């Protein structure tokens, strides 16, 4: 895969997971072990059509997979892709954890130095 394609995929992944309704849908699909546009629509304050549209976005980002069963497509969460999305964001969070630890140590070293000077 070229770098440009990878970037596009990541961008789709990010937009897909950035929407609160879609995150709620992912939660429901994980809890229920899958679902259809109809079953999700019954549990969310949005129309079945809106649910179908959101499912399309999740599908394109690789976060859900459609299984053609019966009259309506049944969707399952692609857990590997979801884990990848979560890991990418949490690595940014851990970068801040490290920065804040350094801020803490620097500030506390200054505080101690000032106290020593005053003693």
């Amino acid at each position, binding site marked *: 895969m070229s770098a440009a394609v990878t*970037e596009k995929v*990541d*961008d789709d*992944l*990010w*937009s897909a*997971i*950035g929407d609160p309704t879609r*995150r709620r849908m992912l939660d429901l699909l994980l809890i229920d072990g899958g679902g259809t546009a109809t079953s999700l629509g019954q549990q969310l304050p949005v129309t079945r059509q809106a649910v179908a549209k959101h499912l399309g976005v999740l599908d394109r980002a690789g976060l859900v997979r459609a299984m053609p069963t019966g009259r309506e497509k049944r969707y399952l969460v692609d857990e590997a892709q979801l884990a990848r999305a979560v890991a*990418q*964001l949490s*690595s*940014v*969070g*851990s*970068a*801040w*954890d*490290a*920065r*804040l*630890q*350094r*801020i*803490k*140590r*620097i*500030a*506390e*070293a*200054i*505080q101690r*130095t*000032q106290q020593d000077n005053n003693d």
Partner: protein
Amino acid sequence: MEFGTIEREIYVAASPEIVFEVVSSPDHLKQWWPDDARYEATPGSSGEIVFGDCDAGGAVVPFTVVDARPPRTFSFRWTHPADKVAAKGNSLLVTFDLSPSGDGTLLKMTETGFREMGWEVAVLEQQYQEHVTGWDFFLPRLLPYVATLQVRP
């Protein structure tokens, strides 16, 4: 968990005045994050932070101070295009809120803008996350520097 926003809180056993200096001044910033920092710690000031060596594949990243109210709030935007004014949608916004707590300071950090900017910028953040290997590298640089430090009253 809100995807697109990072929130952290940490207790620091130092006064808000000291913590404010550490999170806001360019000389301090480069002790805990980039390799170099050039800006004035006043609202609207634009400058840049530098990761690595510019002559050897390093990166210069725009940095604009949004708010500076010692010793309570310091916020800045970064990663906007160098020829554009930093604004919502083209940059990440980092806000430090400080509140006195016991003999120290409760420091709250939020970084927002990932959702508006798409994914590439989070990859960018990730690339910059650990330019120093840790405190063993840091401490020798820091100690001579602390001794000469002046904190504004």
